[in-house]
Structure formats: structure tokens, C-alpha cells
């Protein structure tokens, strides 16, 4: 009786619609939504060390990377890459004055083999716009390591390496 008192026919229809949609949301299969995995790390950079050639590293000590890869388990998908680079800010892990930024999007696929490890899994990032690929070897499900043009492990320095770690 209370419901009948407060519900006009229009409100009654809206209530029915709302209930039906809530039921639909509860049963919708969300497995098609891509699972994203984020890898982070800090690497060296200098005028000769430019993992992305368009970086202006004439005044650069290190770079902080965030790489988000979708559908890691499927063997291909999309990625975003965000990199802040520049000089260190003493006493912190931050880039001085905010640094410069590289912001890339693209698709990724898998390749097989690196120097000395023919069965190694390699994730190849292809940025939109036709830029050359960036390759990372998959050490395990939670670690990637950047490769050079000959698919050799990038060598870091006393302060930073080229290993990227999965983050939650």
C-alpha cells in the first residue's frame, strides 16, 4: 500500500527498469575486459643512452618508467608508456624540476629468443606513429628487462638498472 501511494505509473516503470539493469550488471560477463599489468623502474640515461630516440637526454642522469601492458597472458595487446627523465634532485628519488616526459601508446606482441637464450620470451612494444619498437625480455611474470638493438641485456650503472618490476 505504501509503494502504491508513492509510485506514479512513470516512477513504477523507472523502478522496474532500474531493477532489471541491476540484475543485468550482476550477471554480465566481464572476462573480456583486458587485464592490465604495470611495470615500473628507474634506468640510467645520457646523451648516448636514449631508449627512445626522440628523448632529449643532453642533460639527463636517470629516467623513471611506468609501462602498462594489457592482456599480458594472451601474447598481444595494447600498452602505454610514461617516462619522466632528467637530473636527480639530491636527497630524493625525484627528477629535478619535474623533468621531461615521454608519453607513448601502441600495440605489443611477443617474439622469441635473445642473445644466448633462444627460448626467451620478448615483449615487443610498437608505438603508434611508426616509431621503432622497444624490446623487453620477460624474466618472469613480474620482471622485464630492456634490450639493446642486438637483443642483449641493457647494462645499467652503479645507481640504476634496466629491470622493470611489476607493481600492484
Amino acid at each position, binding site marked *: 500500500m505504501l509503494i502504491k501511494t508513492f509510485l506514479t505509473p512513470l516512477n513504477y516503470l523507472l523502478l522496474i527498469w532500474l531493477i532489471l539493469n541491476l540484475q543485468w550488471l550482476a550477471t554480465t560477463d566481464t572476462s573480456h575486459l583486458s587485464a592490465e599489468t604495470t611495470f615500473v623502474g628507474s634506468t640510467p640515461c645520457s646523451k648516448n643512452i636514449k631508449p627512445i630516440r626522440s628523448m632529449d637526454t643532453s642533460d639527463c642522469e636517470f629516467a623513471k618508467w611506468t609501462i602498462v601492458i594489457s592482456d599480458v597472458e594472451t601474447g598481444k595487446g595494447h600498452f602505454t608508456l610514461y617516462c619522466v627523465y632528467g637530473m636527480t634532485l639530491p636527497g630524493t628519488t625525484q627528477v629535478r*624540476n619535474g*623533468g621531461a*616526459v615521454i608519453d607513448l601508446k601502441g600495440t605489443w606482441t611477443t617474439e622469441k629468443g635473445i642473445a644466448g637464450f633462444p627460448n626467451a620470451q620478448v615483449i615487443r612494444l610498437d608505438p603508434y606513429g611508426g*616509431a621503432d619498437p622497444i624490446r623487453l625480455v620477460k*624474466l618472469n611474470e613480474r620482471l622485464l628487462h630492456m634490450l639493446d638493438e642486438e637483443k642483449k641485456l641493457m647494462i645499467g650503472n652503479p645507481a640504476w638498472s634496466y629491470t622493470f618490476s611489476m*607493481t600492484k
Partner: protein
Amino acid sequence: MLTVFVAHAGSAQVLAKNNTPEKSITYEEMPVGPTVYGVFEGRSPCQEMAKQVSIEMTPSCTKLKWRLTLYVDATTGNPTTFTSYMGLYGRTPHKGKWAIRKGCPFDKNATLIVLDADKPNESFTLMKGDDNVLFILDPQNQFRVGTMDLSYTLNRVQLVKGER
């Protein structure tokens, strides 16, 4: 000031000729000669490494600065001793024997460098990525996962003498 570059073109991947060991300054006596296999450096999280060898470090210890020097027999090339500066043992270098082992849970062909192989409670194991890159493993010989700022990777360096 924040400068933003959105890269739509330009090549990537570092040239192999530029992917070489970087220089690292030392004020200590330089290890030289055919008995030096290599010097490797890196910065790893502190607490996890200290816990592995049951050393208690203050909470202010967030990172360890590693310098690991591996020595070999000049004639056979077999592992002999190592010296490590990493801060877990104070300012004095830690010295011991090292050995090469083969295989770990995720790769039967992996080459492992085992420090203090004769002292299990003090031992660290590293996996050889290649001649220039080593990965510090956990007690179960699995990879360790780092952070945005630190990793468990040591890199071959070229020591140069510094002047005070």
C-alpha cells in the same frame, strides 16, 4: 618547468655500441690483473637482503649500495674469492669464496654465482643474465621483484681511480 614530448616518430632501442659498462669511481685500491673476473654494482632494497642473512638493520636503511668484485684463478679461470661492499657488514668489505652452480627452479640451464657457498647462512645467489648483468635471487633461487627506484640487478662497471 615540466616539458612534455609526445613521441610519434623516431627510432628506439639503444645501439649496441653504446650498451657498454659504465665507469665507476673508486678511492680504494684498484683490483687489476687476470685474476679479476669483474666488478659489479647496483642498488637494491635493504631490509629484504638483511633479513636473508639475519642481520638487523635500522629502518632508515632503505637501500644497499653493492660493489661486488669476483676473482678467478688466473690459470684455470675457476672461481676463487670475492669482495663485496654492500653495507650489511659495516664499512669493512666482506670477503669469501664463490662458486658456480647450474640450474634453478625456472631455468635448468641458468648459471648461478653463489657467494659464501661454504656458509649457507650467509650465502647470496645471483643468476648470470650475461657477462655484464647479474640478478640477485631469493633463498629459493627465484627472481626478486624490485620497486620504481631500486632493483635486484647488478651491472658490470669499469672502475676508475678517483682523486680525493
